[in-house]
């Protein structure tokens, strides 16, 4: 039985064992085992040549990882918190995302950038921001978010296997929220597919990461109202698994999209836009978003008010069900 953060460490252990080209780079990931222990024990097992404590320098880390990828290595980079990826933004957007294209397939840009993210754990300022949309809007990248210990390992190994650069976002709130049986061997989950956690007929709830337990709870509450909700975990934010969400939307005719990031231009907007382009004639109600407000993520005393929760989701569903 592993927590999500343990299963993430385990996935990296397996990857380091399997492929000598895999390298880990990041701040405090070596001797310290990562500030969340997501690389616990790996420095001891694989040494400081493969599990590398770097200077405090995100552009340096990501930029040199691209050079390593071009040299045939497979860097797995830890950014300590997603908010602190911004100093490496230029490297990611202008280079990591484009090196394969720019060299017309000659140079690899294959790497995984891991970052814990999201709110709900009373973390200090800027440690809880959800900025996935910046990267979903950046062609050349993939963006993956797990929601359980088992899928975390499978998706992370899938991401490591993938020749494209993958931003792998780890919901802080789920790091230790529950344990689950996770095989200790190598296995992957497809990194471009959504996952249906629950089937339903009346409404589709779409989310990812830390929103999934909330959506499952909401679907339980809705049963009491005789509303059957389908819960879809996007898992892959880029690319978006259109087939799964279109099928579900066509079936239920009602969609609520839930995310922590600010509403405007969040990934929810893209899902709504695709639905309104492709399945609008199957919809029986407006498309609803339950999302963060268009304000910076608050200091933690107010985060409960900022975040989507079960009540907000249920209320949104009710609005759709009683829409006319």
């Amino acid at each position, binding site marked *: 039985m592993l927590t999500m953060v343990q299963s993430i460490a385990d996935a990296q252990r397996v990857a380091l064992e399997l492929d000598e080209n895999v390298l880990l780079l990041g*701040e*405090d990931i*070596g*001797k*310290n*085992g990562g*500030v969340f222990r997501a690389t616990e024990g790996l420095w001891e097992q694989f040494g400081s040549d493969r599990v590398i*404590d*770097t*200077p*405090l*320098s*995100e*552009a*340096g880390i990501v930029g040199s990882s691209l050079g390593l990828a071009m040299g045939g290595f497979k860097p797995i980079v830890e950014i300590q918190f997603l*908010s*602190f990826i*911004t*100093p490496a933004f230029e490297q990611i957007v202008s280079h990591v995302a484009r090196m394969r294209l720019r060299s017309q397939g000659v140079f690899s840009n294959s790497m995984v950038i891991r970052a814990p993210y999201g709110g709900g754990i*009373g*973390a*200090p*300022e*800027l*440690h809880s921001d959800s900025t996935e949309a910046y990267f979903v809007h950046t062609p050349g990248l993939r963006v993956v978010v797990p929601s359980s210990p088992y899928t975390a390992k499978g998706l992370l190994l899938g991401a490591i296997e993938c020749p494209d650069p993958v931003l792998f976002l780890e919901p802080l709130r789920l790091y230790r929220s529950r344990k689950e049986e996770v095989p200790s061997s190598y296995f992957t989950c497809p990194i471009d597919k959504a996952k249906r956690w629950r089937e339903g007929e009346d409404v589709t709830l779409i989310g990812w990461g830390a929103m999934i337990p909330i959506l499952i709870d909401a679907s339980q509450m809705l049963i009491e109202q005789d509303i059957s909700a389908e819960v879809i975990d996007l898992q892959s934010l880029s690319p978006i698994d259109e087939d799964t969400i279109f099928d579900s939307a066509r079936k239920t005719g009602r969609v609520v999209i839930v995310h922590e990031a600010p*509403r405007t231009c969040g990934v929810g907007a893209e899902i709504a836009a695709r639905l309104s382009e492709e399945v609008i004639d199957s919809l029986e109600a407006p498309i609803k978003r339950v999302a963060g*407000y*268009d*304000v*910076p993520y*608050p*200091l*933690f*005393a*107010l*985060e*409960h*008010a*900022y975040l989507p*929760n079960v*009540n*907000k989701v249920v*209320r949104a569903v009710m609005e759709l069900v009683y829409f006319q």
Partner: protein
Amino acid sequence: MLINHLLPCGALTNTGSAFWQMISQQEKIKLLHFMRFVRLFDRRMVLWQRQGKIGTYAPVEGQEASQIGSALALNKLDWIFPSYREQGVAFTLGIPTTSIIQYWSGHIEGCKPPIGYRYVPPTVPIATQLPHAVGAAWSIKKRKEDAIAIAYFGDGATSEGDFHEALNFAGVFHLPVLFFCQNNGYAISVPFEKQSATKSVVDRAKAYEIDEYQVDGNDILAVYDVIKNARKKKRPALIEAMTYRTGAHTTADDASRYRCEEEVRVWLNRDPLYRYEQLCIKEGLLDEEQLTKEDEKMAIHLDQSMKEVEQKTPNLPSGLFNHVYYQLPNWLEKQQEEASEDVNNGSVHC
């Protein structure tokens, strides 16, 4: 050359003796009081964190001389750009205790400086406050104010691009800005030897043609002297205060994972408060009775401040929306109404 006025045992060096004669009785006592207060405050914060009264906290212990010595050398019009560990600076400069507690309790109100203060809210992303200090110094220069800007940061911050860009601007535009690095030997778990190939941070000043000072950061007299001196010059300078945090990086950190007890013991023997107290005893400045009284007053003040903070309920939902823009725009007003509704119908608890 490391500037040192006061040895770990509490003896003055030659330069120290000279400086000691130059400063007033009042100054000497201030240095002592603030060191004691900050230590008390800081330990209380760690305790409160353990009791769940505040959130994750970054302790100051071991770095008091650097923070208080520098803060007391500043003037009212100076712009101060702290990182997240400058509670000693904040407290010394008169930021209300309640504000500091509020900040660490996750209340944005704790970021608000009192009227007339140029004390900027803590900066969480590493090294990003350095360019801000450059800009503030530029504004000082343009307005011909009798002031400087000072940025506080750690040894780890010197690896970030913003460190470089800020120091370069300061050199190119000749701005009155002090870059005050508390080199406590670690960036969380990463020791300075792995952070930089240079032996020390001041080695980097040459790359920008700015002044440099390296000072014993556990020696409050030396720090006080250096900053007084540097700020008078109104020239850009990189100051490295050699110090150590004897506690963990934050209350969420376990320092025993990356450093040994022996190393900590060495630094405990260089304690900034102990050595200054020894000096004060020798100089007859330490009035035990008086100090006990002051400590008690301080303890009461701290507990009262905490109570005050506990009684403050954050403003919901306005606390989310106020000041995001100069005026609340229409579309945010709509969202604020939505949030109000959630509060009113119990979807969100106050």
